[in-house]
């Protein structure tokens, strides 16, 4: 029975043009909508699979505004069994702040006798891209951490975490409890079912407030890069353009 905590962040959907909030402190999801990063979708999928395979529980956690419960419900709809909402203005929380808040929840659950064998996070958030919350969390909890995990199994209290490393596949064998950050690609996240969605509505959320004052993200402002002026040269239309294309290859020294 493996109890997994999977931590997600409400972020603006990144598949469209970025719009900034008026105070230039965050990306605005007004038009594109909000989601969790694809790394976190995979982390949820891994957590749910582990819980299903072992009769355990996948608990989803987020730190964010009231609206972030939408992301918790989405995770509940695909199989998480419990949810924790640390209600806070996420923009004011830097990576170290978020790690500290998650650590406080983990310790509190531990103290209540419902500790987590495994804490999963995304490799990096698709908005702020800090690449560090999972690692900071591990240090805050004094636990080992593996980064960039594609898939993992748990057997006899040992996690086998698989990472697509720079020189090929790698496996880490680490005893529980431990922390892992997940990189997209190892598993295909499922969509919610109608019944899952109906069930998600009925789960009572564990709502908490932040344990400490945030130190902040040291952000001065966000900016949009200037749009690159289009200088495209149209080589032609349809198959007739093929000779011009090959001329270009030759000019570029390709072949």
């Amino acid at each position, binding site marked *: 029975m493996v109890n997994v905590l999977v931590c997600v962040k409400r972020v603006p959907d990144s598949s469209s043009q970025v719009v900034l909030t008026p105070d230039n402190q965050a990306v605005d999801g007004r038009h594109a909508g909000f989601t969790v990063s694809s790394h976190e979708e995979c982390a949820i999928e891994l957590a749910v699979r582990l819980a299903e395979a072992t009769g355990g529980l996948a608990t989803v956690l987020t730190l964010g505004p009231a609206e972030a419960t939408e992301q918790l419900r989405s995770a509940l709809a695909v199989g998480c069994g419990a949810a924790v909402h640390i209600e806070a203005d996420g923009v004011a929380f830097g990576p170290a702040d978020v790690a500290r808040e998650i650590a406080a929840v983990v310790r509190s659950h531990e103290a209540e006798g419902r500790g987590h064998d495994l804490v999963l996070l995304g490799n990096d958030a698709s908005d702020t891209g800090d690449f560090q919350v999972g690692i900071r969390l591990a240090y805050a909890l004094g636990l080992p951490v593996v980064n960039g995990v594609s898939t993992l199994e748990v057997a006899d209290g040992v996690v086998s975490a698989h990472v697509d490393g720079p020189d090929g596949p790698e496996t*880490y064998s680490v005893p529980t409890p431990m922390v892992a950050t997940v990189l997209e690609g190892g598993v295909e996240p499922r969509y919610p079912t109608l019944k899952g969605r109906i069930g998600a509505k009925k789960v009572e959320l564990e709502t908490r407030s932040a344990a400490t004052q945030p130190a902040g993200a040291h952000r001065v402002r966000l900016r949009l890069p200037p749009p690159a002026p289009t200088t*495209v040269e*149209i080589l032609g239309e349809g198959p007739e353009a093929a000779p011009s294309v090959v001329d270009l290859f030759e000019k570029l020294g390709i072949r």
Partner: protein
Amino acid sequence: MILLWLECDANGVTEISLETVAFARSLSAAGGGIVIRAALFGDVPEAARDQLAAHGVDEVHHVTGSAYDAYSGAAWASALQDIRERTTCVVVAAAGSPRGNEVIAHLAARLDVPMAANVLSFSGLAPFEVTRQVAGGSALEDMRLPRRPALFTVAGHSWTATPADQRTTPVWHEESPAVAEADLIARVSARGEAKEDSSGALTSSRVVVGAGRGAGGPNGFGGVMELAEMLDGALGVSRVVTSLGWRPHHEQIGQTGSRISPELYIPCGISGAIQHWAGCSSSKTILAINTDAEAPMVTKAHYAVIGDMHEVVPAIVAELKRRAV
């Protein structure tokens, strides 16, 4: 002093690590010629020694020993921490590669100081302010690093890995700092063979042929694969293609896939959503093939052919064959 964590592959120091060295030289110059130290772990190919000299590294800390044979983020960061303390470096940086981000994050956690990932440039030394990529490269963040040491990684392909104006003769330190047992718990315990079709080919190829929704289905990739093969290139795809299950994930180019910087990228039937652009914008030359002349991929490209990829690509293949005869 600046301490850099650099990565090597079989050919020497990796391209993006050398880009980081270039960034560091600029920072050094701004600070009146600050000493640049480099930390390298494990096997270092002979070529790397010359590269380090050519690129202006002043001192090298080469870390070896059984504790470092297998990768462990915590252990490597522990060694880096040890070197930093001994050398009192005020800046520690690495390339914004998966491992670079990981090692610097470990160090940041150990020292409890902020870290900036994927930095593009710096704009001031006191306070030390950097600009970094966020939202997959589609937005920039101006960020302060008020504490010492300042920790950051340098965004791939944001600097050019040009050699220094003056070669150095790096002072070489062989090291094997002690590591706590706890830092060795999470270390690579087994390795598999690198798969031939892993994303390595995609990120290292001089030519990448991309295909998107315009492929039309899982059977729509024959033409682009043939073109990639003829150009000795790799096939890359957009996120929608992997989401629909038409091609495997490791072929995905984009914010959550591979980031490429080939000599020539040929996106076919890819509209060019931000997500995708984040992964291909470093390409030296982009030739877009698309039915829609207004598609972002076309307007951002250097060259374009307006037309259906299923007609244009076979025509290019035929032309290549004709000229090869």
